[in-house]
Every structure is written in structure tokens, then in C-alpha cells.
């Protein structure tokens, strides 16, 4: 297993796609912070006309930091692409047979690749996050009034849960890669899921709210949002990151933790089973 990891890490650090994804993630963060700063400038100038309503909508480092490693943003497609390519290259090049035929158990081959994929995802995420912090400070500056008491405790708790969600998402992508076994198909399916499932969740939310039997629209909305366990966003790994902060404040942080763990276990089990049972071409 140790040798498999050494060889997989060597492969990862020789792959151009890994560096390209990391560089693009860094650039996306920088551009995003710059655009936010420009938006803030516009809102500041508009506040002279319409008052403080605009300034309250301004982007600050304080409200950005909790989201920077959440796998909900557009930048996460770079992680998806990186992970898909790393696993499927073995099928495309046919090199998986060289590994499997040398006496390595399939469980170890699967685990080694999963571990390296998690590290790859973490590195790309780190590139995005560090770039956000550096360029966030540069373009947005320190928030007025500082960060406040308890902010960093909450922040690192959220980061801990986000890392678990990241691992869950990588497990899911790996499972899809072992099921589909081609890089085009795997990337297509995971990208579609990344964008489509949140849309389906939104539709589900709207239908649920509309079908609520409360008298007013406000009551219907309140009824839905007060039901912590019934919200669909809590159960899809791609939207779970967006619910972590809210669940922290509601005392239901255990929901995203359990859901992330469930994704890790179930995706990992299915992926491993499929890989073990199927013939390697």
C-alpha cells in the first residue's frame, strides 16, 4: 500500500492537469476578490444616492472567509476535473492492468487512488483559499470593526466540516469514475450533477413551499426554513457546504457531519465493490 501511494503521488505531481487546475483556481480567487472590490466601490458610490441600503450589501472578508473552502462555488469544477482525470487516465491508458496484474489487492489500489485524489482536491482548494485570503486582504482590506469575538472558532469549525464534505464529494466523484471509466463521461456526469442537482433542489424547495397548507406565503416560507431535517440542501453533497454556517448557528452542525460521513462510506463502498467485481480491460 505504501508503494502504491508513492507511485500514485509521483504520478499526480507529474500530471500537467493538476498544476493547471491549481493555477486556474488561484487565478479565479484573485479575479473574484478584485471583482468584489470593484462591486463594493460601485455600491459605495451608489450609497451616496440611495443611502446605507447598498453599503450593507457590500462584500467583506468577514462574510467571504467561511465560504472559501466550501465545494459549492464554480471553482470546484477544477477539483472535479482534476480528480476525474487522475482516476480515468489509468483506464484510458490501460495502465490499470499493469498495476492489478502485479499482485496488488484491488482494495489497496482503490484506497491509494482515493487518498491521492483527496490530497489533490485539498491542494487545489488550498490554492483557491490562500489566494482568496491574500487577494481579499489586498483588495477588500480588513473588515470595519474587525472580525469579532468567537469568529475564528466558528470559522475553523466550519472549515473542519467543509473538509469532511470535500472528502465526501471526492469519494462520490471517485465512485462515478470507477463506474463510468472514461474521462469524458465521468467529467460530464459529475459536472452535470454539480450544476443540475442544486437546480432540482431549488425546484423541490419551491414546490414544497407552494404546497404548504399555511395561510400566508411568509408562513409557508417560515414553515419550510424552520424544518432543519427536511431541507433538501442538507442531503446533496454539492449544496451541503452552503448549509454549514446556518447549521452551526442552529445547533444542528451534526447534520452536515453525518451526511458527509455517509457520502464517504457509501460512495467508498460502492466504488470499491464495483472496482473489485468488474473485469479490467
Amino acid at each position, binding site marked *: 500500500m505504501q*508503494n*502504491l501511494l*508513492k*507511485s500514485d503521488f*509521483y*504520478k499526480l505531481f*507529474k*500530471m*500537467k492537469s493538476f498544476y493547471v487546475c491549481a493555477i486556474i483556481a488561484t487565478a479565479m480567487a484573485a479575479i473574484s476578490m478584485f471583482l468584489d472590490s470593484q462591486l463594493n466601490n460601485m455600491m459605495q458610490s451608489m450609497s451616496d444616492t440611495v443611502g446605507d441600503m447598498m453599503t450593507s450589501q457590500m462584500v467583506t472578508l468577514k462574510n467571504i472567509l467561511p465560504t472559501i473552502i466550501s465545494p459549492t462555488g464554480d471553482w470546484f469544477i477544477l477539483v472535479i476535473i482534476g480528480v476525474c482525470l487522475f482516476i480515468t*487516465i489509468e483506464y484510458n*491508458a*490501460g*495502465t*490499470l*492492468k*499493469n*498495476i*492489478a*496484474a*502485479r*499482485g*496488488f*489487492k484491488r482494495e489497496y489500489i482503490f484506497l491509494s487512488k482515493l487518498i491521492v485524489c483527496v490530497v489533490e482536491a485539498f491542494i487545489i482548494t488550498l490554492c483557491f483559499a490562500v489566494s482568496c485570503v491574500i487577494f481579499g486582504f489586498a483588495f477588500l482590506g480588513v473588515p470595519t470593526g474587525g472580525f469579532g469575538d468567537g469568529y475564528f472558532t466558528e470559522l475553523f469549525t466550519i472549515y473542519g466540516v467543509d473538509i469532511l464534505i470535500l472528502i465526501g464529494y471526492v469519494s462520490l466523484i471517485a465512485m462515478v469514475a470507477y463506474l463510468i471509466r472514461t474521462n469524458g463521461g465521468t467529467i460530464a456526469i459529475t459536472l452535470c450533477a454539480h450544476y443540475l442537482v442544486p437546480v432540482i433542489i431549488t425546484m423541490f424547495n419551491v414546490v414544497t413551499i407552494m404546497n404548504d397548507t399555511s395561510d400566508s406565503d411568509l408562513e409557508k416560507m417560515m414553515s419550510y426554513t424552520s424544518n432543519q431535517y427536511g431541507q433538501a440542501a442538507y442531503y446533496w453533497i454539492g449544496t451541503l457546504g452552503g448549509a454549514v454556517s446556518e447549521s452551526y448557528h442552529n445547533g444542528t452542525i451534526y447534520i452536515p457531519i453525518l451526511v458527509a460521513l455517509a457520502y464517504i462510506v457509501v460512495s467508498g463502498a460502492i466504488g470499491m465493490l464495483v472496482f473489485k*467485481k468488474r*473485469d*479490467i*480491460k
Partner: protein
Amino acid sequence: MEYALRTFELTKKYGEKLAVNNVNMNIPKGEVYGFVGKNGAGKTTLIRLVLGLANPTSGNFEFFGGMNNYKARARIGNLIESPAIYPNMTGQQNLTIFCKMLGVNEEKIPELLNLVGLNDVGKKKAKDYSLGMKQRLGIAIALLGDPEFLILDEPINGLDPSGIIEVRDLIIKLNKEFGKTVLISSHILGELSKLSTCYGIISNGMLVEELTHEELISRCTATTVIKTNNPEKAKQIISNLLADKYGTVPTLSINNNGAVVIGSAIEDTGSVTKALFMNDVVVESLTTAGSDLENYFVERMG
């Protein structure tokens, strides 16, 4: 006798099709086993089964007299179908990956590249290699870790004549000097016959025959078969005649049917029948049997 590989009624079914059908294969240690069969006969499928790339439908196999399959495969090098290499990496990098995977010292890489004739490819990426170069790199990967048993599926595909000779000489050297057992499958019967010490012939998923190189030669030698009413007397007469006529006598024997078998094709059969007639031996039938190597394999493969 020690065996590198034995299979016991090994079977693989895809839907209704029996790709490998109750195969009992025996590869003695230290031999070069030529695995012959038509396209789609089941050669690659059987190789994939024993290497753990496919799950058998039924049957079993064992390496090195019953060793655990995972441990045994660590002692086996293989090249299956087309060479599997990382296209965006150089030959050196490809070998480095497998060195790390197998825990082999990377200092052996230049020696291996030299052995397979890839010592001057520099920083060329594997995707830019010719088919022959890719094949050589695949063989180099198979040789990593100094395996005891080499399984090579069509290793000379895409090689030019000088490359074929180099690979042949390499396999013979690995077998004779280093005692490695080799299973080699190929369609090029001429090449197989130059290096194999034993053969397995597969047809429609079934192992039709296993034979040694000597057995193959004896079956492919042309013979003359003469059935008479007095085989012992006929044998003596023929021996005297051939000794007088040619100075040497080929092998003479009497088979189970009581016919005299001469171990070569006789052109002047008229002299033989005349000599037998003059000595009151009645010739009931006279035929020439046997075939060349290619015909023999083609007949057995169906």
C-alpha cells in the same frame, strides 16, 4: 516436476459464449511455453484470468506449486495486448512509476532501457513513440523487479525484423541464462518455433493439445507407411535396400497396425515395392504421412 502455472478446468463465460472452456494448462518451470491459437481463440482471456484481471466463471489455477496468487503475481512480469504506458510521460518516468510501485531501485532503469534498445530516446514523451518503441517499453516494464515468470501476449507485434530478432534473443537469454519461465502467445508460428520449448494449442476456448518441442518436430516429420502381410520380413528387406541405395537407413519401426513406418518420405517407392514383391511380401498399402509446422498448427487450431 515443478510448474510455474497450472490451471484446473478454468472457464470464463461471457453471456452464452465460452471464451475459455475447461482449460487444464501446465507450464513447467524453466520452459518457454508457446501459446498458439487463432484470433478470438481465448489466449488473451486466459492470460487475463490468471493475472487477476478477470474473474473466472469456474475452475482454478495455481502459481509455483500453490503459492498465494497475490504473492505469486509479484514474481510475474507481464505484457498484455497493447503496451500500457502513460502517454504524457517519458520512458524513464514510466519506468520510475513502476519502480516506486514495486519497491525496485530506480538505478536499474538505464540498464533496462539499454536492454530493450531505448537508451537514446531522451525526453521524448511516450505518446510520440512508434509502436515498436512502445512495445519495447512495455517489455521493459514487464522485466522490472526481476520476475521469475514472464507472461508476454503478442510481444513482437509492431516490431521490425531486427526488433523481432532482438526480442527473440532477449527471451532466449532470459530463459537460458537466468532460468526464467516464459509464456509467450503469438500468431507468428515461425518465431514461436525458434524459441519455444513446449507448446499449448488453443481453439475456441479449449486447450486442444500440449506438447514439447521434440514431440512437435517428430509429428511434423514426413514418414512413409507400408502395410504388408509380413511386417518383420518387410522391415528387413527395406532396411537392406535403403542401406545399399543411400548408404544410410532412416528410422524403421512397426506401428500398432502392423505397418512398417519409415522415418522419412521415400521418393523411389517403386524400388521398395519391387524389392518386397521379389521376396514374396505382399504390399497392401503405401502412403506418405506428416506435415510441416504451419500445417500442423493450422490443422490443430481448426
